[in-house]
């Protein structure tokens, strides 16, 4: 929780640092993990949850319940991970994570901001757990099935239109990755957002320039996402994705009829310089040997402040 005598941006930065620490700690103990995603996304997620989004307190159990079975006509037990993002209310905002390969970073964030117990992180990728490696809609902080990338934005657009029809005033925030701007459906969704003037949709793009195969520009060059989005009629800002004040600023502008996109330029090694040695393959970090792991372990010890609330 926010300590006294700190500014919001100091608090938000501390949350972001906490995400990196927790994910690094987990990656070392697990001998692998989606570490670079946490490095690039930490400030974006922290800014959304602590500054941008108007969401209520979590209404989910602090320790995530086990897998309830998939949704079906005969299963009344399934639940949504959205409850970690607060109650469903017309005036409150909603959050949708699209690249759910960043789930570990989101879980770490939920712990940092007090929405999930640290014990929840220990359930990551364990059999029978909802704290899944690639998040599903029952996973803490998740609301959609987004693991097949590029589908969340269209789903969020449908939710935004429905909420407009129902008179909801809350906004709808989508966290995306730059790799998703390869995908045709993403652009179909942008066309639709612009055509139906869905200005309650705000999208933060973690533009870390990385995909599973390596650097995005070598896998499939797509040029300027900002220019492309602007050409589609969206309202676009490009900011330093590790500057929490710059990240928060576009969300403070009143909506103007256009969907909002914030291209957050990020570094997949931010905060953990050791990762630079692994470029260009940063998608999933698996330590080569005990010596490498030991270097990361030593680096973790130097990270400021230890593990919050663990």
């Amino acid at each position, binding site marked *: 929780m926010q300590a006294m005598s700190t500014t919001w941006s100091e608090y938000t930065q501390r949350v972001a640092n906490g995400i990196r620490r927790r994910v690094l700690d987990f990656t070392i103990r697990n001998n692998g993990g989606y570490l670079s995603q946490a490095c690039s996304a930490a400030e974006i997620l922290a800014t959304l949850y602590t500054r941008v989004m108007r969401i209520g307190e979590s209404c989910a159990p602090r320790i995530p319940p086990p897998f309830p079975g*998939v*949704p*079906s*006509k005969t299963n009344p037990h399934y639940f949504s991970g959205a409850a970690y993002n607060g109650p469903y209310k017309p005036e409150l905002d909603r959050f949708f994570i699209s690249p759910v390969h960043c789930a570990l970073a989101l879980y770490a964030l939920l712990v940092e901001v007090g929405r999930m117990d640290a014990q929840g992180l220990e359930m990551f990728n364990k059999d029978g757990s909802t704290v899944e490696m690639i998040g599903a*809609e029952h996973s803490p902080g998740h609301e*959609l*099935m987004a*693991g*097949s990338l590029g*589908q*969340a934005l*269209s*789903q*969020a*657009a*449908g*939710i*935004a*239109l*429905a*909420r407009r*029809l*129902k008179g909801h005033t809350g906004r709808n925030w989508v966290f995306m990755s730059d790799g998703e701007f390869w995908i*045709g*459906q993403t652009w*179909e*969704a942008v*066309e*639709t957002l612009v055509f*139906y003037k869905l200005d309650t949709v705000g999208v933060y793009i973690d533009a870390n320039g990385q995909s599973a195969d390596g650097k995005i520009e070598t896998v499939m060059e797509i040029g300027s996402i900002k220019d492309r989005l602007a050409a589609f009629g969206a309202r676009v800002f490009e900011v330093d994705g590790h500057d929490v004040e710059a990240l928060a600023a576009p969300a403070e502008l009143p909506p103007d009829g256009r969907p909002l996109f914030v291209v957050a330029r990020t570094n997949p090694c931010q905060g953990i310089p050791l990762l630079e040695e692994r470029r260009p393959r940063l998608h999933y970090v698996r330590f080569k040997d005990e010596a490498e792991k030991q270097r990361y372990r030593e680096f973790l010890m130097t990270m400021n402040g230890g593990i919050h609330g663990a």
Partner: protein
Amino acid sequence: MVLESRVHARKLVEWAKDKPEVVVFSADLTSSTEVDLFRDTYPDRFYSFGMTEQNMMSFAGGMAREGFTPFVHTFAVFLYRRALDQIAMSIAYPNLPVRIFGFLPGITTPGGATHQAIDDIAVMRAIPNMTVIETGDATEVESVFDAIQPIHGPVYVRQLRGDIPRLFDPTEPLQVGKARILSIGSDIALFSSGICTEEALKVSAALQRVGVSMYHVHVNTLKPFHTQEVVEIASQVAYGVITFENHTIIGGLGSAVAEALAETGLGKRLIRIGLRDTFAHGGSKTYLMKYYGLDALTLVRSIEQLLGETLGIDEDDVQITVQQPIRSTSKAEDL
């Protein structure tokens, strides 16, 4: 034979009048999928998506999560082939009440292979949580809306458009999971679906004349499938079972019947009439049905194969003799 036009268009407008949660989606095929009348009547509940089928499916999932019931319209072939992943993950996994209407089933379009949905039932049937319906006449086209209304989950409707026959009595609406028994017999059991039921009715009089007794069942629910009913009927006939569908014989009605027979250990011969693992091409419905063996004479030859004798029925003997819509169940004498 009574033909009726634009049944889907008219009925949807009437049916949705007092259902504000029903919204209609179109992918640039608004007239072609008979939702132009809905668009003009309820412009606030009509959403145009252009050719963005993948986006349209995920968007439908989003609206359904908020309590709306999207009725998504396009040609069948464009929805399950272009947007299968979106149907599976944005709609079917969360078990959302999206109604997906696919038009131009099988060879009912001269548009050729790109426009012919020949494997849609196989694909949609394999998706968990999905209900799969195929309509066969005007009565079913107009009553499918009420029939699927109580289903908590996604429904795929293989729908007919344009001028369509009224084969079934309008007072006997489509009921999900309830097959229509068109005649009772003891030699052959025939399970037909979609437009193949009309085609199969062409052989009824000729079969009666030569003394072949056929148990004819029209199947409109492909999933969940009427396994028990199929097995009970199949067990009552002497010579074997035929399935007749406007679809590839792999994965559709023929496969569903085969699964039912095999799982219960009922050792009946089975002939599956349909597209024989082939794409089709552009042409008239009559031409394509004959060319690909989806016609009444192919049915006659299949019956002969099961009986082991020639019946002496030729092209002149197979024609629609039904003048009035059929009442279902055990009134075989009405046929």
